């Protein structure tokens, strides 16, 4: 599995709050799944206030919040690979 940092993420929001990230995912993505803190995408366990909104775009990209202690929360877009199907199986369609 790859580390998120190695996936050349596109940063959609920088230094955002968890609420801002959730709002943008829900506004931007037609395919939204809700997961709980600790859900792993690649090698990264997602941090945030549950339920955490994660989006799928174009069948191949995942949009997720990525939190670092010093820089706050980023909303990033990464190529999802097999994580897309896993998210579809494990994520919830409602908050």
């Amino acid at each position, binding site marked *: 599995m790859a580390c998120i940092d190695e996936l050349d993420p596109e940063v959609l929001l920088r230094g955002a709050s*968890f609420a801002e990230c959730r709002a943008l995912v829900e506004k931007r993505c037609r395919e939204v799944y809700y997961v709980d*803190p600790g859900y*792993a995408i690649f090698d990264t*366990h997602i941090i*945030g206030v549950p339920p955490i909104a994660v989006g799928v775009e174009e069948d191949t990209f995942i949009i997720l919040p990525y939190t670092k*202690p*010093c820089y706050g*929360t980023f909303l990033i877009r990464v190529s999802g690979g097999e994580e897309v199907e896993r998210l579809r199986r494990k994520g919830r369609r409602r908050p």
Partner: protein
Amino acid sequence: MTTQAHKNESALLVFGCPEVPVQAAIGLYLAGRLGEGGYDVLSSGNPSVLVLLRVSDIKKHYIGRTIDLDRCIGEVAEGKRDAGLCVVFAHNDAGISYAASMRYLLPEARLVVIVFGRNAEELAAGVEFPCEKVVEKAVHNPGRLKKGIDEVFGWRA
């Protein structure tokens, strides 16, 4: 609330970014007091904060075991690590996110969130999950924050 831990009870300290000076002082204090009270204390944080704590505690009087924050979150999420007490330091939105995550991941633990820094009150208003809070606009002087912590842990005379 007594601070005398039950046998084998573990305490997990979750540190935030070290940019606000009071965090290191309060972290050393808290780790020392909890260790004295019988807790097995584990401190988690990013590399900068862990080095800062270790350098300040050359003889390891206060800071015991440490673990990288990402690794810690992963181990807790995978059920490999547990804690009876979890204390999260939060001076920004990321800190609140970590606290909310620990609430979800450790539902049985006593969770204490220490909210500090210039925006402490605003941040604390966003804490909508069950926990005990210590809220103080402390940045450089940890005195009042220490008092609040002493109150929560029953250390005030």
